[in-house]
């Protein structure tokens, strides 16, 4: 598979995943705030932080009160083209990358993204956002699910799809880790597994909701959604599709598929990094992780994910076997 094309595949599904995540996060937070009373600073600011946008947001909106303005935060993370993780930016970059590799992802996948983009940019997306925000965010998430489903059902299950899935899984893994980390910061001291206040319980529930994890959680976990149970579920539950460990397991599978049997040296460094990270998590219980420091562990997950992306780049997108070094970079990043 052409390296440049592979790189675009890897990124385009990440962008789709990112749009979905942002949509879910905004919607969950919006609903959550309707019937709880939280200090101002805990209402919207965590959403900006999870999105990795704290600094850029402060640059664009220097007023310290801005991060408490729910409408502003939502507009920024949904419509602002200056925000690289906003829904509109993610959709734009997903589509731009898809356009370059339209032949690799197939007509059906492309048309899904293109239709989504036109809906978002045309008046109907805007109107729905103004009129029925829940439905708007739901549509964004559905578009992402549709894209994933259409690709799985129509593409050959070979390299282009493998790179797409790999990208999406690494993105998802990082998102879940960040989401847990930020919540933990806000609620930190309560992760003790002992009785929590109703507000804390509601917050843990909201965290589950932000990861679409409420129903799966209650199928697996008897008892209250305590901090330890929720955090444990979101990090270690092997069967939950958004848990950190599940994403790493699946990503490992796709990386294995991508490595050519005939050339075992190809893809070694990315595979080893990924295997190491997953192994480290699997070896621990949630109690051990909490005792050793959740924030440190999650930081390790997030940093190693970034290293894995760099390694994937070096292993597959910029192969040293091919002189001369490529001059033109692939599409991909905002």
């Amino acid at each position, binding site marked *: *598979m*052409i*390296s*440049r*094309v*592979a790189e675009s595949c890897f990124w385009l599904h990440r962008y789709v995943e990112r749009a979905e995540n942002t949509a879910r996060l905004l919607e969950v937070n919006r609903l959550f705030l309707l019937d709880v009373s939280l200090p101002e600073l805990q209402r919207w600011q965590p959403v900006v932080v999870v999105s990795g946008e704290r600094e850029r947001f402060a640059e664009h909106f220097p007023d310290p009160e801005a991060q408490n303005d729910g409408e502003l935060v939502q507009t920024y993370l949904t419509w602002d*083209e200056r925000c690289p993780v906003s829904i509109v930016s993610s959709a*734009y970059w997903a589509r731009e990358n898809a*356009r*370059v*590799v*339209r*032949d*690799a992802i*197939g*007509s059906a996948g*492309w*048309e899904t993204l*293109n*239709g989504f983009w*036109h809906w978002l940019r045309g008046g109907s997306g805007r109107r729905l956002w103004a009129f029925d925000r829940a439905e708007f965010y739901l549509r964004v998430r559905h578009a992402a699910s549709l894209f994933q489903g259409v690709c799985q059902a129509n593409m050959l299950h070979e*390299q282009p799809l493998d*790179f797409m899935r790999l990208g999406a899984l690494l993105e998802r893994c990082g998102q879940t880790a960040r989401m847990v980390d930020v919540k933990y910061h806000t609620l930190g001291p309560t992760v003790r597994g002992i009785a929590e206040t109703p507000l804390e319980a509601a917050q843990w529930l909201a965290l589950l909701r932000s990861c679409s994890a409420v129903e799966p959680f209650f199928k697996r976990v008897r008892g209250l959604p305590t901090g330890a149970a929720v955090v444990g579920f979101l990090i270690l539950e092997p069967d939950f599709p958004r848990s950190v460990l599940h994403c790493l397991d699946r990503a490992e599978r796709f990386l294995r598929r*991508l490595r*050519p049997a005939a*050339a075992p040296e*190809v893809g070694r460094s990315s595979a080893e990094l990924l295997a190491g990270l997953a192994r480290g998590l699997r070896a621990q219980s949630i109690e051990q992780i909490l005792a050793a420091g959740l924030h440190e562990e999650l930081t390790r997950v997030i940093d190693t994910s970034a290293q894995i992306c760099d390694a994937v780049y070096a292993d*597959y*997108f910029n*192969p040293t*076997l*091919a*002189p*001369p070094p*490529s*001059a*033109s970079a692939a*599409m991909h990043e905002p």
Partner: protein
Amino acid sequence: MKRNHRRSRGLLSDYRPLPRVHDELFLEDGSPRPAVAAVARALDAIEEGEFRTRQRLADSVFHRNGITFSVYSDQRGVERIFPFDLIPRVLAPADWARVARGLDQRVRALNLFLADVYGEARILAEGRIPRELCESSAGFLPSLRGVRPPGGVYVHVAGIDLVREPGGELLVLEDNLRCPSGVSYVLENREVMKRVLPDLFATAHVRSVDEYPTRLREALLELGPAGPAHSALVVLTPGIHNSAYFEHSFLARQMGCELVQGSDLFVHGDRVYAKTTTGPSAVEVIYRRVDDQFLDPQSFRADSVLGVPGLVRAYAAGNVTIANALGNGVADDKCIYAFVPEMIRFYLSEEPILGQVETLLCSREQDRARVLDRLADHVVKAVDASGGYGMLIGPRSTREERAEFAERIRQNPRGYIAQPLVELSTCPTWAGHDTKARRVDLRPYVVSGRTTWVLPGGLTRVALEEGSYVVNSSQGGGSKDTWVLETEAP
């Protein structure tokens, strides 16, 4: 009452062909041409309101499917759809059969000409085409003398532009033998047409165009240096900013091969490789949509970033098939066009089946004098321009424009030819409120591997503006689905 009457009007009820112009669907007296009358009746049965709805649906399908060409002015570039008119252009079977034979003949002759010009150059030695005319062509690449492409095929894909004169005969207006584009619109137009006006297909038996990608792939692979089973095929595009990018991607998808940019390929030991996720991978056949001059910075324009350094060496060594071949520009030079009938006689010992437009070469003194004397009666074209640019339509020009062109011709006589203005035929076309006569041309596509195949129909382009003769998409042109009927109507 009046509104109701308007709304239920049939699509062609009030249609009137232009006087002294051939109409594709109607005779001058307003009755449908017998060979295509069934389609005319079926079209007329669609009432206008319904038609408008269908036309809107068609436009939205083009947008949603991203069948667009881009005009990049800022980061969020503008994408336009190539305007599509739902009223098809219909060709009777007998009419088409003759055209297809003529195209086959013409492309065979052009191919033999290219093989000759880059080989023994017999036709020049015998004085049938002036040597200096050939060698002064911008598309002539002397460095490729003696390089014979696999199978001796130069023109893998030809787009031959035809126009119908008032007498009803289809004439060749120009040959496109380098990177003719537009075939994706033929295929997509048909898809959209089937989707929005399915009933129309029930009354007419229309020949399918689906085969094109398979035929092209077959033709390209059978000419691969390693044989069809072992040759890897790629489509080479200048990239996403090229206006025909959609088509490049479309063809790669339809042929099941990789779409690459110049930077994805490299040459090592006179062989071409693609940079893949598992290391270099050999490439044997390149369907390129990059112009000759940009193809290899080592051989042509050194500043090209679209090409592949060393590609021409690999080509000359016979390790890669490039389609279309390099150097084809000499054969579709608008000066050389005048000699194609001569080529047909010289190489095939046949008389040309298709007529063409009388052409004056400004490089010839007596021709030039005639052109300059009567500029208002001619269409003047730059020999190496396309897309409707670099052109003067004499009868519709201003005095200043004529003076400017006269000067240009005097400065560079080899650079210009002149032809009489052909009264292009018209086709009923939706003009927003009602159906009007608009001028059309036709670009059929001819695919050559070891044998030659003509796609039934081709791309019908239509000048959407009233009175306009310019059908190019860059200048207000649109397109139509082109129907070659399977059998004569009863």
